[in-house]
């Protein structure tokens, strides 16, 4: 299988602060990849560089054979879609209107989308089970429905690479699984899905590959069942944990305590 995403020597500086340092990895098509690491380790910054919201200080990003650094934003948006963690204030925007925004890169006309655009949107709404809510304001949806609407908006961009930032942060157990199932089904349809998430057990269950980051660098990349260990969690998160396999052979991670000694205790 050929690589869809190749990142080489990516650095990102904010003034004197280096947020990303020499990031190098490549991903094949049709994978679901988990991006794991503590808060502030550079997960979101890396995703913003990949979809060109931030211009990287140095390094190259190639998606489907195209050098992102040399592409216009309108061309990048046909290759890569991003799903924000939250919708923010939407002033009563309806679900249909929000999802339709995802068709913006494809509409050549000045004002109105075509019937084909509408068909793509309606199909996505049906796929994500929110077609009946299409005339409802986004603000009136539950967190799970809102997350599905955000993913649908990115889906109608028909991207080759989808970047998803903390999709389950406000969701209960049922909706967490629900969202991850949708993301996994997209990965199965030949789209590469890169998910930044804090729930390591969930990532280990659904992802084909995990990228573990710490302080702006990649600590390790590999099969979650192989790379996620108690030692790695201790090193990256500075907490003791229990990593085990459940009866289905899936990894679970239980944090136990802060690893530093009594002197560093918070209380």
């Amino acid at each position, binding site marked *: 299988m050929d690589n869809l995403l190749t990142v080489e020597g990516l650095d990102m500086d904010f003034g004197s602060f280096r947020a990303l340092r020499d990031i190098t990895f490549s991903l094949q098509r049709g994978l679901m990849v988990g991006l794991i690491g503590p808060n502030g380790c550079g997960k979101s910054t890396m995703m913003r560089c990949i979809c060109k919201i931030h211009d990287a200080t140095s390094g190259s990003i190639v998606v489907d054979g195209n050098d992102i650094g040399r592409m216009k*934003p309108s061309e*990048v948006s046909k290759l890569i879609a991003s799903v924000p963690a939250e919708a923010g204030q*939407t002033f*009563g925007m309806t679900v249909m*209107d929000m999802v339709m925004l995802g068709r913006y*890169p494809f509409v050549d006309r000045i004002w109105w989308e075509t019937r084909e655009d*509408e068909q793509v949107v309606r199909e996505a709404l049906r796929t994500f089970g929110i077609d009946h809510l299409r005339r409802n304001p986004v603000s009136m949806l539950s967190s799970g429905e809102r997350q599905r609407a955000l993913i649908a908006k990115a889906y109608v961009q028909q991207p080759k690479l989808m970047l998803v930032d903390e999709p389950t942060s406000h969701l209960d157990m049922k909706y967490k699984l629900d969202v991850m199932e949708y993301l996994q089904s997209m990965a199965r349809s030949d789209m590469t899905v890169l998910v930044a998430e804090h729930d390591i057990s969930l990532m280990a269950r659904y992802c084909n590959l995990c990228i573990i980051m710490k302080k702006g660098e990649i600590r390790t990349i590999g099969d979650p069942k192989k790379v996620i260990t108690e030692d790695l969690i201790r090193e990256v998160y500075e907490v003791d944990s229990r990593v085990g396999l459940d009866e289905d052979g899936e990894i679970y991670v239980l944090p136990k305590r802060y690893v530093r000694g009594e002197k560093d205790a918070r209380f």
Partner: protein
Amino acid sequence: MEEKGANGIAGIFRRGYRRLKEDMCRPADGGEESEIDRKKRRFVIIVIFGILMSAVAFLISISISSGGVIPVSDAVCSMLSAIAKGGANLNTAELYIYQARLPRAVAAIAVGGGLAIAGCMYQAIIRNPLVDPYITGVSSGSGCFAISVVALGVSIPFIGLNSLYIIPVAAIAGGLIAFGITMMVAEGSGGSATNYILAGVIVGFAFSSVQTVFLSLAKDNLADSMWWLYGSFANITWENAWLVFIPAIGISIISMIWAREFNLFMMGEEQAKQLGLNVSVFKKSMMIVASVLTAICVAFCGIIGFVGLIIPHACRMALGTDHRLIMPASIVLGACLMLFSDLIARTLLSPVELPVGAITAMIGTPIFAYMLMRKGREYDG
């Protein structure tokens, strides 16, 4: 269960509106309604209804004066006859409508529509519900320069600027200088929406303080100064009505070309950028366009509040967040509100003329409060 408020006149209107809406939105082939077709139909309804509503407001406005009410047909005849004569050899009725009421109505339409669309553009770009066209310091800059001219009695006869034009020229210059400083400070501090608001507020304070100094020096011209600050169409004539109407309406209509781009901003700058919009260029360009539009609107008739803040919100509550619908609706609603406000301002306590800005708030506040109570829950978030 019987719907709340289904009886009485409000209920009749509501049922009629719903039936009309259902008829207009019914698909021709009996299949499922296309959302795009539905939106296009709503756009056509807004344009047709808007033109009719503006025409009615316009006719009412020219038919009523402090002297009394004349039949609309007589007003229309006098207006057409005066226009046909090219403004020369007019009888008393024609002269009154042609010279006193028509230019005011033309200016009111332009200023109302212009301020509403400027507010709509600012609110979309800055994504803050409290933003109005004066947020970037334009009104303070305009006020400061205009008051300095009024208070100090400045005139520049040798370059042909008489009193009719010197205040508007000073106001436009002041507004654009204030916006220029705001933009410089905001871009220097990162260019975020919050920085634009903060920079606009401090620049506004600075110009307002200088304006206060000029007001304290105004003495004999204090009444004229206050008149400009509260907004009035009393000084509008044909000589300056076109100078407001053509650029204000022109800019308002042209800005609607970018309605879809304004829609992208509703999801935030990051998402707009990710969807392929050159956010930095678009934001700066539209801020400049909206500020020029605001400066033109306040130049000839002073600072009229409320319209630019509330009309876009009212349109969003009624029509959703698609700027292809709310931008034309804002122009129409802003124009109508301004026409009725000017009508009330000049007739309510005649012969005393009231500030238009006070009337816009008096009319608009109860209507907006009603809409907020009905739609506020959906709108918040």
